[in-house]
Protein backbone atom coordinates (compact mmCIF):
# COMPACT_ATOMS: atom_id res chain seq x y z
CA UNK A 1 0.00 0.00 0.00
CA UNK A 2 1.61 3.31 -1.06
CA UNK A 3 2.12 5.91 1.64
CA UNK A 4 0.58 9.39 1.61
CA UNK A 5 3.52 10.97 -0.21
CA UNK A 6 3.37 8.37 -2.94
CA UNK A 7 -0.39 8.75 -3.29
CA UNK A 8 -0.09 12.50 -3.64
CA UNK A 9 2.62 12.14 -6.29
CA UNK A 10 0.57 9.58 -8.22
CA UNK A 11 -2.57 11.69 -8.09
CA UNK A 12 -0.72 14.81 -9.23
CA UNK A 13 0.69 12.85 -12.16
CA UNK A 14 -2.65 11.09 -12.81
CA UNK A 15 -1.03 7.68 -12.63
CA UNK A 16 -2.67 6.29 -9.48
CA UNK A 17 -4.86 3.91 -11.53
CA UNK A 18 -2.09 2.80 -13.90
CA UNK A 19 0.12 1.71 -11.00
CA UNK A 20 -2.56 -0.64 -9.66
CA UNK A 21 -1.80 -2.89 -12.59
CA UNK A 22 0.67 -5.64 -11.56
CA UNK A 23 2.02 -5.63 -15.13
CA UNK A 24 3.16 -2.04 -14.83
CA UNK A 25 6.63 -1.52 -13.38
CA UNK A 26 7.36 1.59 -11.38
CA UNK A 27 9.79 3.32 -9.07
CA UNK A 28 8.74 6.16 -6.79
CA UNK A 29 11.21 8.46 -5.12
CA UNK A 30 10.22 11.21 -2.75
CA UNK A 31 13.19 13.50 -2.18
CA UNK A 32 15.92 10.99 -1.22
CA UNK A 33 13.78 8.01 -0.28
CA UNK A 34 12.56 5.13 -2.39
CA UNK A 35 8.97 4.80 -1.29
CA UNK A 36 7.62 2.31 -3.75
CA UNK A 37 8.84 0.09 -6.54
CA UNK A 38 7.73 -2.78 -8.70
CA UNK A 39 9.74 -4.53 -11.34
CA UNK A 40 9.07 -7.10 -14.03
CA UNK A 41 11.00 -10.16 -15.25
CA UNK A 42 14.05 -9.06 -17.23
CA UNK A 43 13.94 -5.51 -15.87
CA UNK A 44 16.39 -4.97 -13.04
CA UNK A 45 16.02 -1.75 -11.12
CA UNK A 46 18.51 -1.23 -8.33
CA UNK A 47 18.03 2.02 -6.42
CA UNK A 48 20.51 3.14 -3.76
CA UNK A 49 19.72 6.03 -1.47
CA UNK A 50 22.47 8.66 -1.32
CA UNK A 51 22.78 12.07 0.30
CA UNK A 52 19.91 14.23 -1.05
CA UNK A 53 18.91 11.69 -3.65
CA UNK A 54 18.97 8.26 -5.19
CA UNK A 55 21.45 6.47 -7.43
CA UNK A 56 19.56 4.12 -9.75
CA UNK A 57 20.95 1.36 -11.92
CA UNK A 58 18.53 0.00 -14.51
CA UNK A 59 19.33 -2.97 -16.69
CA UNK A 60 16.95 -4.35 -19.26
CA UNK A 61 18.11 -7.80 -20.23
CA UNK A 62 18.81 -8.83 -23.81
CA UNK A 63 15.72 -9.40 -25.91
CA UNK A 64 13.29 -8.37 -23.18
CA UNK A 65 10.40 -6.26 -24.44
CA UNK A 66 8.41 -4.40 -21.79
CA UNK A 67 4.97 -3.83 -23.22
CA UNK A 68 3.51 -1.32 -20.77
CA UNK A 69 5.16 2.01 -20.02
CA UNK A 70 7.37 1.96 -16.94
CA UNK A 71 6.62 4.86 -14.59
CA UNK A 72 9.31 6.61 -12.60
CA UNK A 73 8.16 9.23 -10.14
CA UNK A 74 10.73 11.73 -8.90
CA UNK A 75 9.00 14.01 -6.47
CA UNK A 76 9.75 16.51 -3.82
CA UNK A 77 6.84 17.53 -1.65
CA UNK A 78 8.91 19.80 0.59
CA UNK A 79 9.11 23.50 -0.15
CA UNK A 80 12.90 23.58 -0.05
CA UNK A 81 15.71 21.16 -0.71
CA UNK A 82 17.89 19.42 -3.25
CA UNK A 83 17.09 16.19 -5.06
CA UNK A 84 19.91 14.40 -6.89
CA UNK A 85 19.04 11.58 -9.24
CA UNK A 86 21.85 9.54 -10.74
CA UNK A 87 20.68 7.24 -13.50
CA UNK A 88 22.69 4.50 -15.13
CA UNK A 89 20.58 2.82 -17.77
CA UNK A 90 21.72 -0.12 -19.80
CA UNK A 91 19.35 -1.42 -22.45
CA UNK A 92 20.82 -4.67 -23.70
CA UNK A 93 20.64 -5.71 -27.37
CA UNK A 94 17.19 -6.31 -28.90
CA UNK A 95 15.43 -5.15 -25.74
CA UNK A 96 12.74 -2.49 -25.76
CA UNK A 97 11.27 -0.21 -23.10
CA UNK A 98 9.21 2.96 -22.76
CA UNK A 99 9.81 4.93 -19.58
CA UNK A 100 7.69 7.84 -18.38
CA UNK A 101 9.38 9.95 -15.73
CA UNK A 102 7.09 12.19 -13.68
CA UNK A 103 9.02 14.96 -11.99
CA UNK A 104 6.68 16.56 -9.49
CA UNK A 105 7.40 19.61 -7.36
CA UNK A 106 3.96 20.95 -6.46
CA UNK A 107 4.88 23.06 -3.42
CA UNK A 108 8.40 24.11 -4.34
CA UNK A 109 9.63 27.45 -3.12
CA UNK A 110 13.34 26.71 -3.42
CA UNK A 111 13.94 23.26 -4.84
CA UNK A 112 16.81 21.97 -6.96
CA UNK A 113 16.30 18.82 -9.05
CA UNK A 114 19.59 17.60 -10.44
CA UNK A 115 19.66 14.61 -12.74
CA UNK A 116 22.74 13.00 -14.14
CA UNK A 117 22.10 10.20 -16.59
CA UNK A 118 24.26 7.72 -18.42
CA UNK A 119 22.35 5.74 -20.99
CA UNK A 120 23.51 2.94 -23.21
CA UNK A 121 21.17 1.47 -25.80
CA UNK A 122 22.41 -1.81 -27.25
CA UNK A 123 22.30 -3.10 -30.79
CA UNK A 124 18.79 -3.27 -32.25
CA UNK A 125 17.41 -2.13 -28.90
CA UNK A 126 14.89 0.65 -28.33
CA UNK A 127 14.62 3.13 -25.48
CA UNK A 128 11.82 5.70 -25.36
CA UNK A 129 11.86 8.19 -22.52
CA UNK A 130 9.21 10.78 -21.76
CA UNK A 131 10.00 13.21 -18.94
CA UNK A 132 7.00 15.22 -17.75
CA UNK A 133 7.42 17.97 -15.19
CA UNK A 134 4.75 19.33 -12.91
CA UNK A 135 5.92 22.38 -11.01
CA UNK A 136 4.50 24.81 -8.49
CA UNK A 137 3.26 28.17 -9.71
CA UNK A 138 5.87 29.95 -7.59
CA UNK A 139 8.77 29.48 -10.03
CA UNK A 140 10.93 28.20 -7.19
CA UNK A 141 12.29 25.15 -8.98
CA UNK A 142 15.68 24.73 -10.58
CA UNK A 143 15.98 21.74 -12.86
CA UNK A 144 19.32 20.60 -14.26
CA UNK A 145 19.05 17.38 -16.26
CA UNK A 146 22.22 16.06 -17.88
CA UNK A 147 22.48 12.92 -19.94
CA UNK A 148 25.18 11.21 -21.96
CA UNK A 149 23.67 8.72 -24.37
CA UNK A 150 25.42 6.08 -26.43
CA UNK A 151 23.48 4.37 -29.20
CA UNK A 152 24.90 1.13 -30.56
CA UNK A 153 24.37 -0.04 -34.13
CA UNK A 154 20.69 -0.03 -35.14
CA UNK A 155 19.61 1.25 -31.72
CA UNK A 156 16.67 3.62 -31.36
CA UNK A 157 16.41 6.39 -28.79
CA UNK A 158 13.51 8.77 -28.50
CA UNK A 159 13.14 11.28 -25.73
CA UNK A 160 10.53 13.95 -25.04
CA UNK A 161 10.97 16.52 -22.32
CA UNK A 162 7.81 18.40 -21.31
CA UNK A 163 7.54 21.25 -18.84
CA UNK A 164 4.06 22.59 -19.41
CA UNK A 165 2.38 22.57 -16.00
CA UNK A 166 3.27 25.23 -13.46
CA UNK A 167 6.13 27.70 -13.67
CA UNK A 168 9.45 26.58 -15.08
CA UNK A 169 11.68 28.46 -12.63
CA UNK A 170 15.14 27.73 -13.99
CA UNK A 171 15.99 24.87 -16.28
CA UNK A 172 19.22 23.89 -17.94
CA UNK A 173 18.98 20.82 -20.14
CA UNK A 174 22.23 19.29 -21.30
CA UNK A 175 21.90 16.16 -23.42
CA UNK A 176 24.60 14.65 -25.58
CA UNK A 177 24.17 11.62 -27.81
CA UNK A 178 26.62 9.56 -29.81
CA UNK A 179 24.99 7.59 -32.59
CA UNK A 180 26.66 4.56 -34.11
CA UNK A 181 25.80 2.92 -37.41
CA UNK A 182 22.15 3.01 -38.50
CA UNK A 183 20.97 4.16 -35.10
CA UNK A 184 18.07 6.59 -34.82
CA UNK A 185 17.83 9.42 -32.30
CA UNK A 186 14.97 11.87 -31.70
CA UNK A 187 15.16 14.45 -28.92
CA UNK A 188 12.29 16.86 -28.32
CA UNK A 189 11.92 19.53 -25.66
CA UNK A 190 8.65 21.39 -25.08
CA UNK A 191 8.65 24.14 -22.48
CA UNK A 192 6.17 26.86 -21.57
CA UNK A 193 7.86 29.76 -19.78
CA UNK A 194 6.42 32.78 -18.02
CA UNK A 195 7.25 35.22 -15.21
CA UNK A 196 11.02 35.47 -14.88
CA UNK A 197 11.66 31.87 -15.92
CA UNK A 198 15.05 31.07 -17.41
CA UNK A 199 15.33 28.25 -19.93
CA UNK A 200 18.53 26.87 -21.39
CA UNK A 201 18.50 23.94 -23.76
CA UNK A 202 21.77 22.48 -24.91
CA UNK A 203 21.36 19.34 -26.99
CA UNK A 204 23.86 17.74 -29.27
CA UNK A 205 24.21 14.65 -31.37
CA UNK A 206 27.25 13.15 -32.98
CA UNK A 207 26.30 10.99 -35.94
CA UNK A 208 29.47 8.97 -36.22
CA UNK A 209 28.21 5.67 -37.59
CA UNK A 210 27.28 5.14 -41.22
CA UNK A 211 23.57 5.69 -41.84
CA UNK A 212 22.87 7.13 -38.38
CA UNK A 213 19.96 9.57 -38.19
CA UNK A 214 19.05 12.23 -35.66
CA UNK A 215 16.51 14.99 -35.10
CA UNK A 216 16.68 17.66 -32.41
CA UNK A 217 13.41 19.51 -31.88
CA UNK A 218 12.70 22.40 -29.50
CA UNK A 219 9.36 24.07 -28.93
CA UNK A 220 9.32 26.95 -26.48
CA UNK A 221 6.58 29.45 -25.66
CA UNK A 222 7.56 32.49 -23.61
CA UNK A 223 5.62 35.34 -22.11
CA UNK A 224 6.07 38.11 -19.54
CA UNK A 225 9.81 38.36 -18.71
CA UNK A 226 10.84 34.78 -19.44
CA UNK A 227 14.08 34.09 -21.30
CA UNK A 228 15.22 31.14 -23.35
CA UNK A 229 18.45 30.13 -25.05
CA UNK A 230 18.46 27.09 -27.28
CA UNK A 231 21.66 25.52 -28.57
CA UNK A 232 21.12 22.52 -30.83
CA UNK A 233 24.10 20.90 -32.46
CA UNK A 234 24.42 17.99 -34.87
CA UNK A 235 27.76 16.83 -36.17
CA UNK A 236 27.79 14.23 -38.92
CA UNK A 237 31.08 12.47 -39.53
CA UNK A 238 30.02 9.34 -41.40
CA UNK A 239 28.57 8.68 -44.86
CA UNK A 240 24.79 8.48 -45.33
CA UNK A 241 24.08 10.10 -41.99
CA UNK A 242 21.03 12.36 -41.86
CA UNK A 243 20.33 15.03 -39.29
CA UNK A 244 17.87 17.84 -38.72
CA UNK A 245 17.63 20.61 -36.14
CA UNK A 246 14.23 22.24 -35.70
CA UNK A 247 13.62 25.04 -33.24
CA UNK A 248 10.48 27.11 -32.84
CA UNK A 249 9.94 29.72 -30.15
CA UNK A 250 6.89 31.93 -29.66
CA UNK A 251 7.63 35.14 -27.81
CA UNK A 252 5.10 37.44 -26.16
CA UNK A 253 5.25 40.47 -23.89
CA UNK A 254 8.83 41.27 -22.81
CA UNK A 255 10.18 37.75 -23.16
CA UNK A 256 13.49 37.15 -24.94
CA UNK A 257 14.43 34.10 -26.95
CA UNK A 258 17.47 33.02 -28.88
CA UNK A 259 18.27 29.94 -30.92
CA UNK A 260 21.64 28.75 -32.15
CA UNK A 261 21.42 25.77 -34.44
CA UNK A 262 24.83 24.36 -35.30
CA UNK A 263 25.24 21.81 -38.04
CA UNK A 264 28.58 20.41 -39.00
CA UNK A 265 29.26 17.90 -41.73
CA UNK A 266 32.58 16.10 -42.08
CA UNK A 267 31.64 13.63 -44.77
CA UNK A 268 30.49 14.56 -48.30
CA UNK A 269 27.81 11.87 -48.20
CA UNK A 270 26.24 13.18 -45.01
CA UNK A 271 23.32 15.62 -45.00
CA UNK A 272 22.23 17.83 -42.10
CA UNK A 273 19.61 20.59 -42.20
CA UNK A 274 18.26 23.11 -39.74
CA UNK A 275 15.35 25.48 -39.32
CA UNK A 276 14.66 28.00 -36.58
CA UNK A 277 11.74 30.36 -36.18
CA UNK A 278 11.41 32.83 -33.34
CA UNK A 279 8.76 35.47 -33.01
CA UNK A 280 5.21 36.30 -32.24
CA UNK A 281 2.29 34.11 -33.16
CA UNK A 282 1.78 33.75 -36.90
CA UNK A 283 -0.61 36.44 -38.09
CA UNK A 284 -2.69 34.23 -40.39
CA UNK A 285 -3.10 31.57 -37.71
CA UNK A 286 -4.20 34.22 -35.24
CA UNK A 287 -6.59 36.00 -37.58
CA UNK A 288 -8.17 32.74 -38.74
CA UNK A 289 -9.07 31.79 -35.17
CA UNK A 290 -10.24 35.33 -34.40
CA UNK A 291 -12.45 35.22 -37.48
CA UNK A 292 -14.15 32.21 -35.87
CA UNK A 293 -14.94 34.32 -32.81
CA UNK A 294 -11.98 33.68 -30.48
CA UNK A 295 -10.48 36.67 -28.71
CA UNK A 296 -6.81 37.37 -29.38
CA UNK A 297 -5.84 35.87 -26.00
CA UNK A 298 -7.89 32.73 -26.61
CA UNK A 299 -6.45 32.34 -30.11
CA UNK A 300 -2.85 32.71 -28.90
CA UNK A 301 -3.48 30.19 -26.12
CA UNK A 302 -4.87 27.66 -28.60
CA UNK A 303 -1.95 28.11 -31.00
CA UNK A 304 0.55 27.63 -28.17
CA UNK A 305 -1.38 24.64 -26.87
CA UNK A 306 -1.01 23.06 -30.31
CA UNK A 307 2.67 23.90 -30.59
CA UNK A 308 3.44 22.35 -27.23
CA UNK A 309 1.04 19.41 -27.52
Amino acid at each position, binding site marked *: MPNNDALRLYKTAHIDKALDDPNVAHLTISHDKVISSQSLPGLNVIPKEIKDGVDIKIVLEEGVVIKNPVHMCFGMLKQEGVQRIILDIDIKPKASIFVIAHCIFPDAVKVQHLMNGKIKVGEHASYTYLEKHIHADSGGVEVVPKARVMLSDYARFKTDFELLQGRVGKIEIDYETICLAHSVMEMTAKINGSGDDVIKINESALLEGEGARGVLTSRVALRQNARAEVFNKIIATAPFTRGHVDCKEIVQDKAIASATPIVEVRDPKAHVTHEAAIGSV*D*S*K*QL*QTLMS*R*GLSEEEAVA*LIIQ*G*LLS
Partner: protein
Amino acid sequence: MSVLTLKNISLTLSDKKILHNVNLEFLPGKIHALVGPNGAGKSSLAFTIMGLEGYRKFEGDIIFKGESLKDKSIDQRAKLGITLAWQEPARYEGLAISSFLEAAYSPEKGFKPEEALLKSGLAPDLYLKRAVDKTLSGGERKKVELASILAMMPQVVLLDEPDSGIDIESLERIFDAIKILKKRGSTVILITHSLKVLEHAEDAFLLCCGHLMEKGSGHSMCRYFKGKCMPCDHQNMPEADDAK
Protein backbone atom coordinates in the same frame (compact mmCIF):
# COMPACT_ATOMS: atom_id res chain seq x y z
CA MET B 1 -33.01 44.54 -47.31
CA SER B 2 -29.29 43.81 -47.36
CA VAL B 3 -27.50 42.02 -44.54
CA LEU B 4 -24.19 43.62 -45.43
CA THR B 5 -23.74 46.96 -47.16
CA LEU B 6 -20.51 48.51 -48.40
CA LYS B 7 -20.70 52.28 -48.71
CA ASN B 8 -18.09 54.06 -50.80
CA ILE B 9 -15.25 51.80 -49.72
CA SER B 10 -11.82 53.10 -50.71
CA LEU B 11 -8.63 51.42 -49.56
CA THR B 12 -5.03 52.50 -49.99
CA LEU B 13 -2.12 50.15 -49.25
CA SER B 14 1.50 51.34 -49.46
CA ASP B 15 0.44 54.52 -51.30
CA LYS B 16 -1.41 52.49 -53.92
CA LYS B 17 -5.15 52.84 -54.15
CA ILE B 18 -6.57 49.33 -54.14
CA LEU B 19 -10.32 49.98 -53.90
CA HIS B 20 -12.18 52.96 -55.37
CA ASN B 21 -15.55 53.95 -53.89
CA VAL B 22 -16.99 50.46 -53.95
CA ASN B 23 -20.71 50.28 -53.17
CA LEU B 24 -22.25 46.86 -52.75
CA GLU B 25 -25.20 45.20 -51.08
CA PHE B 26 -25.29 41.54 -50.06
CA LEU B 27 -28.69 40.00 -49.49
CA PRO B 28 -29.53 37.54 -46.71
CA GLY B 29 -29.41 33.87 -47.64
CA LYS B 30 -28.05 34.50 -51.11
CA ILE B 31 -24.91 33.29 -52.84
CA HIS B 32 -22.93 36.18 -54.29
CA ALA B 33 -19.72 36.15 -56.27
CA LEU B 34 -16.94 38.69 -56.60
CA VAL B 35 -15.14 38.14 -59.89
CA GLY B 36 -12.34 39.93 -61.65
CA PRO B 37 -8.74 39.53 -62.79
CA ASN B 38 -5.70 39.23 -60.53
CA GLY B 39 -5.13 42.47 -58.69
CA ALA B 40 -8.75 43.57 -59.11
CA GLY B 41 -9.12 43.99 -55.34
CA LYS B 42 -11.42 41.04 -54.63
CA SER B 43 -9.42 39.57 -51.76
CA SER B 44 -8.61 43.05 -50.44
CA LEU B 45 -12.32 43.77 -50.30
CA ALA B 46 -12.93 40.52 -48.39
CA PHE B 47 -10.08 41.29 -45.96
CA THR B 48 -11.49 44.78 -45.43
CA ILE B 49 -14.92 43.36 -44.62
CA MET B 50 -13.32 40.95 -42.13
CA GLY B 51 -11.12 43.71 -40.66
CA LEU B 52 -7.80 41.94 -41.08
CA GLU B 53 -4.51 43.51 -40.04
CA GLY B 54 -3.52 46.15 -42.61
CA TYR B 55 -7.06 46.48 -43.94
CA ARG B 56 -8.59 48.50 -41.13
CA LYS B 57 -7.90 51.99 -42.45
CA PHE B 58 -10.36 52.59 -45.23
CA GLU B 59 -12.71 55.31 -46.32
CA GLY B 60 -16.45 54.71 -46.38
CA ASP B 61 -18.34 52.34 -44.14
CA ILE B 62 -19.33 48.72 -43.80
CA ILE B 63 -22.78 48.19 -42.35
CA PHE B 64 -23.78 44.78 -41.01
CA LYS B 65 -27.43 44.47 -40.01
CA GLY B 66 -27.61 48.23 -39.50
CA GLU B 67 -24.40 48.44 -37.43
CA SER B 68 -21.13 49.94 -38.59
CA LEU B 69 -18.16 47.54 -38.49
CA LYS B 70 -15.60 50.29 -38.86
CA ASP B 71 -14.26 50.17 -35.31
CA LYS B 72 -14.83 46.48 -34.70
CA SER B 73 -12.01 43.98 -34.31
CA ILE B 74 -11.89 40.68 -36.20
CA ASP B 75 -13.35 38.68 -33.33
CA GLN B 76 -16.07 41.26 -32.73
CA ARG B 77 -17.06 40.98 -36.40
CA ALA B 78 -16.98 37.18 -36.10
CA LYS B 79 -19.16 37.28 -33.01
CA LEU B 80 -21.65 39.42 -34.93
CA GLY B 81 -21.75 36.68 -37.58
CA ILE B 82 -19.10 37.29 -40.26
CA THR B 83 -16.25 34.97 -41.14
CA LEU B 84 -13.66 34.40 -43.84
CA ALA B 85 -12.09 31.31 -45.38
CA TRP B 86 -8.62 32.01 -46.78
CA GLN B 87 -7.49 30.93 -50.22
CA GLU B 88 -4.50 29.29 -48.51
CA PRO B 89 -5.70 28.22 -45.08
CA ALA B 90 -3.31 28.54 -42.13
CA ARG B 91 -1.42 25.55 -40.76
CA TYR B 92 -1.13 24.92 -37.05
CA GLU B 93 1.60 22.69 -35.71
CA GLY B 94 0.21 20.19 -33.24
CA LEU B 95 -3.32 21.62 -33.13
CA ALA B 96 -5.81 18.77 -33.50
CA ILE B 97 -8.57 19.20 -36.06
CA SER B 98 -11.06 18.45 -33.27
CA SER B 99 -9.74 21.43 -31.26
CA PHE B 100 -9.74 23.66 -34.32
CA LEU B 101 -13.38 22.82 -35.06
CA GLU B 102 -14.39 23.02 -31.41
CA ALA B 103 -12.99 26.56 -31.29
CA ALA B 104 -15.35 27.62 -34.08
CA TYR B 105 -18.35 25.55 -32.96
CA SER B 106 -21.52 27.42 -32.16
CA PRO B 107 -23.86 24.99 -30.33
CA GLU B 108 -26.94 27.08 -31.16
CA LYS B 109 -26.43 27.23 -34.91
CA GLY B 110 -23.56 25.12 -36.13
CA PHE B 111 -22.91 21.48 -36.86
CA LYS B 112 -21.01 19.46 -34.29
CA PRO B 113 -17.33 19.02 -35.30
CA GLU B 114 -17.82 15.38 -36.45
CA GLU B 115 -20.85 16.30 -38.54
CA ALA B 116 -19.20 19.39 -39.98
CA LEU B 117 -16.17 17.35 -41.02
CA LEU B 118 -18.35 14.72 -42.65
CA LYS B 119 -20.30 17.34 -44.57
CA SER B 120 -17.02 18.77 -45.84
CA GLY B 121 -16.05 15.40 -47.24
CA LEU B 122 -13.62 14.16 -44.57
CA ALA B 123 -14.17 11.05 -42.43
CA PRO B 124 -14.19 12.10 -38.75
CA ASP B 125 -12.56 8.91 -37.48
CA LEU B 126 -9.62 9.48 -39.82
CA TYR B 127 -9.23 13.21 -39.34
CA LEU B 128 -10.43 14.47 -35.94
CA LYS B 129 -7.22 13.53 -34.15
CA ARG B 130 -4.90 14.69 -36.92
CA ALA B 131 -3.25 18.09 -36.69
CA VAL B 132 -4.10 21.05 -38.92
CA ASP B 133 -0.51 21.05 -40.11
CA LYS B 134 1.68 20.38 -43.11
CA THR B 135 0.78 16.70 -43.13
CA LEU B 136 -2.58 17.70 -44.63
CA SER B 137 -2.73 18.39 -48.35
CA GLY B 138 -3.91 21.78 -49.56
CA GLY B 139 -7.29 20.29 -50.43
CA GLU B 140 -7.67 18.66 -47.02
CA ARG B 141 -6.85 21.93 -45.30
CA LYS B 142 -9.51 23.72 -47.32
CA LYS B 143 -12.05 21.10 -46.31
CA VAL B 144 -11.07 21.46 -42.65
CA GLU B 145 -11.48 25.23 -42.98
CA LEU B 146 -14.91 24.73 -44.53
CA ALA B 147 -15.83 22.32 -41.73
CA SER B 148 -14.95 25.01 -39.19
CA ILE B 149 -17.34 27.37 -40.98
CA LEU B 150 -20.10 24.75 -40.90
CA ALA B 151 -19.42 24.35 -37.18
CA MET B 152 -19.70 28.11 -36.73
CA MET B 153 -22.62 28.68 -39.13
CA PRO B 154 -22.15 32.44 -39.48
CA GLN B 155 -24.57 34.82 -41.15
CA VAL B 156 -22.04 35.98 -43.75
CA VAL B 157 -19.25 33.81 -45.14
CA LEU B 158 -16.48 35.13 -47.35
CA LEU B 159 -14.92 32.24 -49.28
CA ASP B 160 -11.69 33.27 -51.00
CA GLU B 161 -11.06 31.07 -54.05
CA PRO B 162 -12.89 28.03 -52.65
CA ASP B 163 -11.82 25.88 -55.60
CA SER B 164 -8.06 26.51 -55.58
CA GLY B 165 -6.08 23.34 -55.00
CA ILE B 166 -9.23 21.23 -55.02
CA ASP B 167 -9.89 18.18 -57.20
CA ILE B 168 -13.15 17.87 -59.15
CA GLU B 169 -14.85 15.46 -56.74
CA SER B 170 -13.89 17.53 -53.71
CA LEU B 171 -15.18 20.64 -55.43
CA GLU B 172 -18.64 19.04 -55.55
CA ARG B 173 -18.45 18.53 -51.76
CA ILE B 174 -17.56 22.17 -51.36
CA PHE B 175 -20.56 23.17 -53.47
CA ASP B 176 -22.71 20.88 -51.30
CA ALA B 177 -21.39 22.67 -48.20
CA ILE B 178 -22.15 26.06 -49.78
CA LYS B 179 -25.72 24.85 -50.42
CA ILE B 180 -25.99 23.84 -46.76
CA LEU B 181 -24.85 27.30 -45.69
CA LYS B 182 -27.46 28.90 -47.94
CA LYS B 183 -30.16 26.52 -46.73
CA ARG B 184 -29.37 27.52 -43.16
CA GLY B 185 -29.78 31.18 -44.10
CA SER B 186 -26.14 32.21 -44.45
CA THR B 187 -25.10 34.76 -47.04
CA VAL B 188 -22.19 33.36 -49.05
CA ILE B 189 -19.72 35.62 -50.85
CA LEU B 190 -17.54 33.67 -53.26
CA ILE B 191 -14.32 35.27 -54.45
CA THR B 192 -13.44 33.46 -57.58
CA HIS B 193 -11.66 33.19 -60.89
CA SER B 194 -13.58 30.10 -61.84
CA LEU B 195 -16.54 29.89 -64.16
CA LYS B 196 -17.55 26.65 -62.43
CA VAL B 197 -17.74 28.42 -59.09
CA LEU B 198 -19.47 31.46 -60.54
CA GLU B 199 -22.24 29.21 -61.90
CA HIS B 200 -23.34 28.61 -58.29
CA ALA B 201 -23.77 32.31 -57.57
CA GLU B 202 -27.13 34.02 -57.78
CA ASP B 203 -25.67 37.52 -57.93
CA ALA B 204 -22.22 38.57 -59.07
CA PHE B 205 -20.09 41.66 -59.04
CA LEU B 206 -17.22 42.36 -61.39
CA LEU B 207 -14.26 44.22 -59.97
CA CYS B 208 -11.38 45.55 -62.02
CA CYS B 209 -8.47 47.61 -60.64
CA GLY B 210 -10.47 48.25 -57.50
CA HIS B 211 -13.51 49.58 -59.35
CA LEU B 212 -16.88 47.92 -59.35
CA MET B 213 -17.51 47.45 -63.05
CA GLU B 214 -20.78 45.59 -63.20
CA LYS B 215 -23.49 43.93 -61.14
CA GLY B 216 -25.75 41.21 -62.39
CA SER B 217 -26.89 37.66 -62.09
CA GLY B 218 -24.26 34.97 -61.79
CA HIS B 219 -25.32 33.71 -65.19
CA SER B 220 -24.97 37.10 -66.87
CA MET B 221 -21.51 37.57 -65.41
CA CYS B 222 -20.33 34.36 -67.05
CA ARG B 223 -19.68 36.53 -70.09
CA TYR B 224 -16.70 37.92 -68.19
CA PHE B 225 -14.90 34.62 -68.52
CA LYS B 226 -15.73 34.29 -72.18
CA GLY B 227 -15.17 37.88 -73.22
CA LYS B 228 -12.22 38.43 -70.85
CA CYS B 229 -12.39 41.64 -68.90
CA MET B 230 -15.76 42.80 -70.10
CA PRO B 231 -17.02 45.45 -70.08
CA CYS B 232 -13.62 47.19 -70.02
CA ASP B 233 -10.72 46.45 -72.35
CA HIS B 234 -8.22 46.28 -69.60
CA GLN B 235 -6.38 43.03 -70.68
CA ASN B 236 -5.78 41.70 -67.13
CA MET B 237 -2.82 43.97 -66.49
CA PRO B 238 -3.88 46.12 -63.59
CA GLU B 239 -0.42 47.55 -62.92
CA ALA B 240 -0.12 48.88 -66.45
CA ASP B 241 -3.39 50.64 -66.69
CA ASP B 242 -6.30 51.83 -64.63
CA ALA B 243 -9.63 50.49 -65.69
CA LYS B 244 -11.26 53.87 -65.57
